[in-house]
C-alpha cells in the first residue's frame, strides 16, 4: 500500500485530476460562501466544508499526518470554537452586507483581482511541471509520520518548543481577556442582610421609574423628577460601569410633551378668561 | 592650558538659567535679582574678553579646541575675531537691560500693572499665568546660546546653537505675551501662538536647509572646522567646484536671510515682535537676529567667497528692497511695536547691503551697524514698552500728548527715535554712513537708492513721535506717570552709549577693522580706488 501511495504521491493519475477538479470546485464554492453568507453560522459551516476538502487534498498529496490533523484539530476543534463563539454572540444575528465605508468594496475588489491575477501570473511563470514525490523522503524514516516526527524533534525542535510556549501564552491570554475580576470579596448572606437593615431601604428596592421606556436590568429607572435612580440597577453592574442611561432623547421628548401640554393648558386658561370677560 | 574665558562667558548665563529656574516658586523677587546679577557678571566677563582681545593680534584669539564627536570630526572650537567680540559685547551688554525692562512682565497677576488708569476687573484666566523664573531663565539661556554662536568656529557647533536658540525663543514668544492687546485674552493667546509658531517654522525651515548645506560642506571639505576649510581654500588644496559651492552658499544664506530677516522672508518678524513682550522683542531683533547677519559675514563670505561674489547682485537688490519696503511699511503701521519691527527690517537691509558691498567701509559699517542697531532699537523699543505698559495699548491712535504729562519718557523716546533715523552725533549715523559710502563706492546706484531709506526713516519715526507724544493731551493719557527709577536705569545708559559711540566710535572700529581686512582678503576684493588717486 505504501508503495502505491508513494507512487500516487510522485505522479498524478487521472483519478487525482478528477478528484482535484471536483473537490477544488467544492472548495472554491465553500470559500466564496464563507465570504458571502450573511449569517456567521453559515459562513462557519462553509469554511468547515472547505477545510475538509483541503484535508482530502493533503492526503492526496501524501501529507497523511497533516490531513488527519486538519480534520481533527482544525475542522474539529477550531471550527467548533468558532461556532461556539458565534452562538455566544448571537446566532440569529444576520450581518448586513451593505458596505458602509466609501469605496471600500471597490478597492477590495480591485486589490483582490490584482492580487489574484498577479499571483496566478507569477505561478504561471514558474517552471513546475512535475512532482518529485515524497517516496524517498517518507521512506528514509519509515513513513510520513515518522519522517515528520524526526524533523520536528531534531531540526525544528526549537521552533517546536517555542510554539509550545506560544500555545501556553495564548491560553493564559485568552483566560485573562475573558476573565472579569471581582470588585470585592463576596459577601456572606449574613452580611448582606445586616447591610440591608442598616440602609434606608428596608422595603424592596424600587421598580423601574415612571417614565422609563425600558425595563432592562441595566437601565436605571426614573424618579418622578426625571432623574435616574441608581438604586434600581444591580450593584454589580453599577460597579462595572455597565449601566446604560435612559437616552437623553426620551427625556427631551418628555420635556417637549410637557411643554406642549402646558401651552395647551395655558391657552385654554386664557381663553376661559377672555370668555369670562 | 589657559583659563577657558570664552567657555566661561557662555556657560555663566547657562548656569544662571538653571539656577534661576530652580528658585522656589514663591521667591520670585529672588529669581529676578539672581538673573540680573548673573547677567551683570556675564557682562564683566565679556568686558574682560573685550579688553584682552588684541586688535593687531591673530585673527582668532582666546581659542579653545576639544574633540567632541570624533567620528565626524566635530570639534568644540571657539575663538573670537573682531566682529565676534563686538557682537559678544553687545549681547552681554543688552541682556541686563532686557532683564531690567522685563522686571514685571512675567509677574503672575496683572495686578502690579503700572497704569494709573486702572479699571477693568483683575484678570485671572490661565493665559496670565506666568512663571517668572522661567521667563528670566529662558532669557539667560538665549544669551548663553547667542554668545556661544558668536564664538563658535566649528560649523557644526554653530549650526546646533543656531537651531537650539529657537527653542527658548519659541517659549519666550509663545509663553509670555504682551499684556497690551486688543480683543479678548483667548484671541490674544491665539495670535501669540500664531506668532510663535510662525517664528519657529520660518527659522526651522531655514535651519533645515542649512543643515543640508552643512552636511554637504562636510562631504566636500571633510571637516567642520572653519579655520581648516578656510585655510584649505586659501592654499588651493580644496576646490569645491563652482556649482557645489553655489548650492552650499545658497543653503547657508537662506537660513541667515530668514534669521536676519531679508525681504521676502521677513513676515515672521512683525508678528513675533508685536505679540511678544517688549524685552523679548528686543531680544529678537537686537540680539538673536544679529546671529543671522553675523553668520553671513563669517560663514558665507569666508567659506564661499566665489559664490558670494556670484550672488552679490541679487542679494544687493533684496537688501535694497528690504530697506525701502520695510521703511514704507513702517510708515503704514498702526501698531507701535510692529512699526519698530518694520523699521528693523529696513535696518537689516542696510546691514546686508554693507556686508555684500564688499568694501572695507561697507563691512566695517555693517558690523558697527549690528552693534548700533542693537542699542538704538533696544532704547526705542524698551521705552515704547514702558509707554505701552502704562496705557495698555499698542495702537498709535490711542496716544497723544504724552510729551506734556511725561516729558522724560517722551524725551528718551525721541532720542531713541532720532537714533533710529540715524541722526548724526548718535551711534547709528556712523554705521549707516559707512554702509552708504561703502556701497556707493562699489555700486553707486545702490548707494543712491539706499539713501532714500534715510528720508523714509525720518518719516516713520517723526510720524510716530508726532502721533503719540504731541498734540492735545488725550484723556486716557492724562494721569500717566513719568519714567520710574528702574526705567530710567534702562533708558539712560543706553542713550549715553548711543551718544558716546556716535561721537567716539574708535574703540569699536579699531577691533572691527582688522577682522574686516581679513574678510576682504578672504573674498579677494580690494576697495575701489578714488578717481583722483587712481589717476595719480
Amino acid at each position: 500500500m505504501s508503495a502505491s501511495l508513494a507512487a500516487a504521491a510522485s505522479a498524478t493519475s487521472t483519478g487525482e485530476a478528477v478528484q482535484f477538479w471536483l473537490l477544488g470546485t467544492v472548495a472554491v464554492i465553500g470559500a466564496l460562501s464563507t465570504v458571502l453568507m450573511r449569517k456567521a453560522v453559515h459562513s462557519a459551516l462553509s469554511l468547515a466544508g472547505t477545510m475538509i476538502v483541503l484535508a482530502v487534498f493533503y492526503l492526496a498529496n501524501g501529507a497523511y499526518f497533516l490531513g488527519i490533523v486538519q480534520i481533527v484539530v482544525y475542522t474539529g476543534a477550531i471550527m467548533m470554537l468558532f461556532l461556539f463563539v458565534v452562538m455566544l454572540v448571537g446566532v440569529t444575528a444576520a450581518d448586513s452586507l451593505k458596505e458602509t465605508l466609501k469605496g471600500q468594496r471597490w478597492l477590495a475588489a480591485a486589490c483582490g483581482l490584482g492580487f489574484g491575477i498577479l499571483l496566478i501570473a507569477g505561478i504561471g511563470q514558474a517552471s513546475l511541471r512535475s512532482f518529485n514525490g515524497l517516496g524517498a523522503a517518507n521512506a528514509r524514516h519509515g513513513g510520513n509520520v515518522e519522517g515528520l516526527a524526526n524533523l520536528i524533534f531534531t531540526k525544528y525542535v526549537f521552533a517546536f518548543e517555542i510554539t509550545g510556549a506560544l500555545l501556553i501564552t495564548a491560553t493564559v491570554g485568552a483566560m485573562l481577556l475573558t476573565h472579569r475580576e471581582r470588585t470585592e470579596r463576596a459577601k456572606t448572606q449574613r452580611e448582606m442582610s445586616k447591610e440591608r437593615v442598616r440602609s434606608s431601604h428596608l422595603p424592596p428596592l424600587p421598580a423601574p421609574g415612571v417614565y422609563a421606556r425600558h425595563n432592562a436590568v441595566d437601565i436605571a429607572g426614573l424618579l418622578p423628577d426625571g432623574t435616574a435612580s441608581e438604586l434600581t440597577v444591580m450593584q454589580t453592574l453599577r460597579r462595572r460601569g455597565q449601566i446604560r442611561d435612559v437616552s437623553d432623547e426620551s427625556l427631551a421628548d418628555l420635556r417637549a410633551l410637557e411643554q406642549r401640554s402646558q401651552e395647551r393648558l395655558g391657552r385654554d386658561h386664557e381663553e376661559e378668561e377672555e370668555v369670562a370677560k | 592650558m589657559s583659563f577657558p574665558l570664552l567657555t566661561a562667558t557662555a556657560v555663566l548665563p547657562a548656569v544662571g538659567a538653571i539656577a534661576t529656574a530652580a528658585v522656589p516658586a514663591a521667591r520670585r523677587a529672588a529669581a529676578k535679582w539672581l538673573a540680573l546679577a548673573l547677567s551683570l557678571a556675564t557682562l564683566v566677563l565679556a568686558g574682560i574678553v573685550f579688553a584682552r582681545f588684541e586688535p593687531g593680534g591673530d585673527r582668532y584669539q582666546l581659542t579653545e579646541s576639544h574633540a567632541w564627536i570624533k567620528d565626524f570630526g566635530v570639534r568644540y572650537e571657539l575663538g573670537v575675531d573682531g566682529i565676534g567680540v563686538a557682537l559678544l559685547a553687545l549681547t552681554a551688554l543688552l541682556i541686563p537691560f532686557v532683564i531690567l525692562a522685563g522686571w514685571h512682565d512675567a509677574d503672575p497677576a496683572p495686578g502690579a500693572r503700572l497704569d494709573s488708569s486702572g479699571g477693568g476687573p483683575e484678570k485671572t484666566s490661565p493665559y496670565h499665568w506666568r512663571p517668572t523664573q522661567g521667563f528670566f531663565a529662558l532669557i539667560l539661556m538665549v544669551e548663553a546660546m547667542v554668545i556661544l554662536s558668536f564664538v563658535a568656529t566649528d560649523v557644526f557647533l554653530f549650526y546646533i546653537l543656531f537651531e537650539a536658540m529657537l527653542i527658548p525663543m519659541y517659549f519666550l514668544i509663545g509663553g509670555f505675551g504682551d499684556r497690551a492687546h486688543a480683543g479678548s485674552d483667548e484671541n490674544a493667546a491665539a495670535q501669540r501662538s500664531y506668532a510663535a509658531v510662525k517664528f519657529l517654522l520660518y527659522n526651522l525651515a531655514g535651519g533645515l536647509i542649512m543643515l543640508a548645506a552643512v552636511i554637504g560642506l562636510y562631504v566636500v571639505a571633510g571637516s567642520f572646522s572653519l579655520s581648516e576649510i578656510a585655510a584649505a581654500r586659501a592654499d588651493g588644496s580644496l576646490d569645491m567646484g563652482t556649482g557645489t559651492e553655489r548650492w552650499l552658499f545658497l543653503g547657508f544664506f537662506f537660513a541667515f536671510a530668514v534669521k536676519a530677516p531679508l525681504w521676502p522672508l521677513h513676515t515672521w518678524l512683525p508678528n513675533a515682535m508685536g505679540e511678544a513682550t517688549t524685552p523679548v522683542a528686543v531680544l529678537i531683533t537686537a540680539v538673536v537676529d544679529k546671529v543671522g547677519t553675523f553668520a553671513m559675514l563669517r560663514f558665507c563670505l569666508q567659506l564661499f567667497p566665489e559664490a558670494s561674489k556670484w550672488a552679490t547682485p541679487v542679494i544687493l537688490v533684496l537688501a535694497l528692497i528690504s530697506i525701502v519696503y520695510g521703511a514704507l511699511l513702517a510708515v503704514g503701521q498702526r501698531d507701535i511695536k510692529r512699526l519698530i519691527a518694520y523699521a528693523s527690517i529696513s535696518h537689516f537691509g542696510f546691514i546686508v547691503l554693507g556686508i555684500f558691498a564688499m568694501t572695507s567701509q561697507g563691512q566695517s559699517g555693517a558690523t558697527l551697524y549690528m552693534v548700533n542697531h542693537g542699542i538704538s532699537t533696544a532704547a526705542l523699543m524698551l521705552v515704547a514698552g514702558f509707554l505701552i505698559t502704562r496705557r495698555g495699548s499698542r495702537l498709535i491712535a490711542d496716544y497723544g500728548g504724552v510729551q506734556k504729562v511725561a516729558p522724560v519718557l517722551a524725551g528718551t523716546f525721541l532720542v531713541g527715535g532720532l537714533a533710529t533715523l540715524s541722526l548724526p552725533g548718535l551711534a547709528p549715523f556712523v554705521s549707516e554712513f559707512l554702509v552708504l559710502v561703502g556701497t556707493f563706492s562699489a555700486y553707486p546706484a545702490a548707494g543712491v537708492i539706499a539713501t532714500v531709506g534715510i528720508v523714509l526713516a525720518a518719516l516713520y519715526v517723526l510720524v510716530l513721535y508726532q502721533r503719540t507724544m504731541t498734540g492735545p493731551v488725550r484723556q486716557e493719557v492724562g494721569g500717566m506717570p513719568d519714567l520710574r527709577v528702574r526705567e530710567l536705569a534702562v533708558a539712560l545708559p543706553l542713550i549715553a552709549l548711543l551718544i558716546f559711540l556716535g561721537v567716539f566710535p574708535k574703540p569699536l572700529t579699531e577691533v572691527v577693522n582688522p577682522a574686516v581686512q581679513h574678510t576682504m582678503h578672504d573674498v579677494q576684493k580690494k576697495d575701489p580706488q578714488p578717481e583722483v588717486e587712481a589717476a595719480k
Partner: protein
Amino acid sequence: MENLIALLIAAPLLGAAVLLCGGRRLDRTGHWIGTLLAGASFVVGVVLFTDMLGRGAEDRTLHQRLFSWIPVEGFQADVAFQLDQLSMTFVLLITGVGTLIHIYSIGYMEHDERRRRFFGYLNLFLAAMLLLVIADNYLLLYVGWEGVGLASYLLIGFWQHKPSAATAAKKAFLVNRVGDMGLSIAIMLMFTTFGTFAFGPVLGSTGETSEGKLTAIGLMLLLAACGKSAQVPLQSWLGDAMEGPTPVSALIHAATMVTAGVYLIVRSGAIFDGAPDAQLAVVVVGAVTLLFGAIVGCAKDDIKKALAGSTMSQIGYMILAAGLGPVGYVFAIMHLVTHGFFKAGLFLGAGSVMHGMNDEVDMRKYGGLRKYMPVTFVTFGLGYLAIIGFPGLSGFFSKDKIIEAAFAKGGTEGWILGSVALLGAAITAFYMTRVMLLTFFGEERWRHAATPSPAEPDVEPAAETGGDHSEPHPHESPRSMTVPMIVLAFGSVFAGGFFSIGDRFLHWLEPVTGHDHGHAPVSATTVTAATMVVLVVGVAIAWAMYGRRPVPAVAPRGSLLTRAARRDLLQDDFNHVVLVRGGEHLTRSLVYVDHTLVDGVVNGTAASMGGLSGRLRTLQNGYARSYAVSMFGGAVVLIAATLLMRAV
C-alpha cells in the same frame, strides 16, 4: 589761539546739556545760564576775530584737530575745525544775533512754563550751527547740518500741544531730510572721486576730475542747499515753520540756519566753478525762489508768514549771487549778513507786535500801532527801509551789488537775471510797504476785532490766537525785548555802509572766496538808478492799495493769483496731493501686499499643506478594514514590483 575754536561750540553745547538734563531745579536760572553761555561763545568769537585781524590776509586760516572720528580702512573722518574769514563772518553773525535773541527770549518767553527747555534748544541750535560753519570737512559739516535741522524741529514744534506746530515741525524735518539726502550723496561722490571729504584736499583738487563728476556733486549740494534754505522746490516748510515761537523764527528761520545753503555753496565754490551747468542750476533756483517768495509774501495776511515769504525771496537773492561764481560770492555773504540784521529785527518787531496784541498774527487786525509801540515802530521801520533797499541803509548796499552782479553775468542770461532781480526788488518794496502800512498805519482795526468774522476757506487761519478774545491793549514790550531790537536796527542801518565803504568786506573775504569784477553791460550807476525807480514804484503801488484806502478786516476774495499766492502758489497742494496722498496710498497698498502677497504666499503654502494633510487624514479613518485595504494594496504593489524586476 587754535585751541579756542572748540570752545566756541563747547559753551552752547554745555548749556544745552545742562539745561536739558538739569531738570526742574534749573527752571528759575535756566534762561540766564543759556544766555550767558551764548554770550560766552560770542566773546570767544570776538577774541578770535581780533586775533585774526591782527594777522596777514594769507595767514588767517586757523585749524584745530580734536580727534579721529571714524577711522576705517581707506576712510578718514576727523573731528577737526577750520576757521577762516568766511567761517568767522558766520561765527560772529550766529553768536551775535544768537545772543541778542537769547536776551529777547528772556522777555518773550517769560510766561512759558517750559522756558528752560526753550533755552536748552536754542543753545543746542547755536552749537550745531557753529559746528556747521567751522567744520573742516563735509562729513562734520553734515553733522552740524542735521543738528540744526534737529534744533529747528524741536523749536518749531516747541508748542507741541498744538497739532499744527507738531505737523509743521515734522514737515520741516522731512523736507530738510530730502535735502540732506543730497548732501550725503554729494559726500559719497566726493569720497569716491577724491578719496576724502575734507575741504582742503577736495576743493584743492577739483581740477583733477571730470566736469561731469563736479556737476553731479554740485547738483547734489544744490539739493541740500534747497532743503536747508527753503529754495524752490523744497521751500514748502518755511511758511509752516512760523508756528514756532517768534525768536526762533528770527534766529533760525531768518538770520542763520536758512542761510546755511548759501554758506554751503559759497564754501564749495571751487566745485561750482568747475561745473557751469551746476552753477546755472543754482542761478535758476535762486531766481525762481526770489520771485516765488516775493509773490507769496505779497498775499499773506499773517505777519510772520509774510516775513517768511520775504526771507525765502531774500535767500533767493543770495543763492542767485552765489550761483554767479566769484562775481557774486562776496555779495551773497554780505547780503546774508545784512539780511541777518534787518530780518532778525523785523521778526523781533513782529514778535513784539504780537506780544502786545494777544498773539494775534493777522495783519488785517492790526493798524495804527505806531502810537502804542513807538520803539517797535521805529526799529521795525528801520528794518523795513533796510530791506527795501532805501539808499544808505544796509540792504541798499548789499542788494544793489547783487543786482549789479546779475547783470554782470553777461549775455542774455545776465539781462534775464538782472531783470528778475530788479523785479524782485520792486515786489519787495511792495509787500514790505504793505506790511508796514497794515501794521502801523491806518485805522485801528483791532478795536473791532471782538466782532466775529465770517470764516472764509482761503483765509489763513490765525495760528497763534490767544485764549481770550477780548479787545487787545497794545503796549510796548519790556526792555529785554526792545534792547535787542534796537541793536539789530543799528546793524540794519549801518552794517551795509560799514562793509561797503572801501570795499572792506570784499577784501576781508576775497582770500577765501576769490573775486572777479565781471564785465557789466550797464554801469553801476544805471543799475542803482533803476533800483531806485522800481523801489519807488513798488512803494507807490502799495501806498495806493493799502495806504489811501481803508483795509477790510476780512481779506477780500482776491484775484486768482492772490488766492494761489495765499496757498503758497499751490505748491503745498501739489505736495499734498502727489506726495502725501500718493505716499499714503502707496504705503497702504504695500501693507496690503505684505499681508496678502508676501505673507500670503507663505501662508498659502502652509494652508495647502494643511489642506493636503487634512485630505490625507481622512484616509486615516480609524477603520481597521481601511487599513487592511491599504496593506493589501501594498502587497499587490510589492508583488507587481517583484515580478516586474524579474521580467526585466
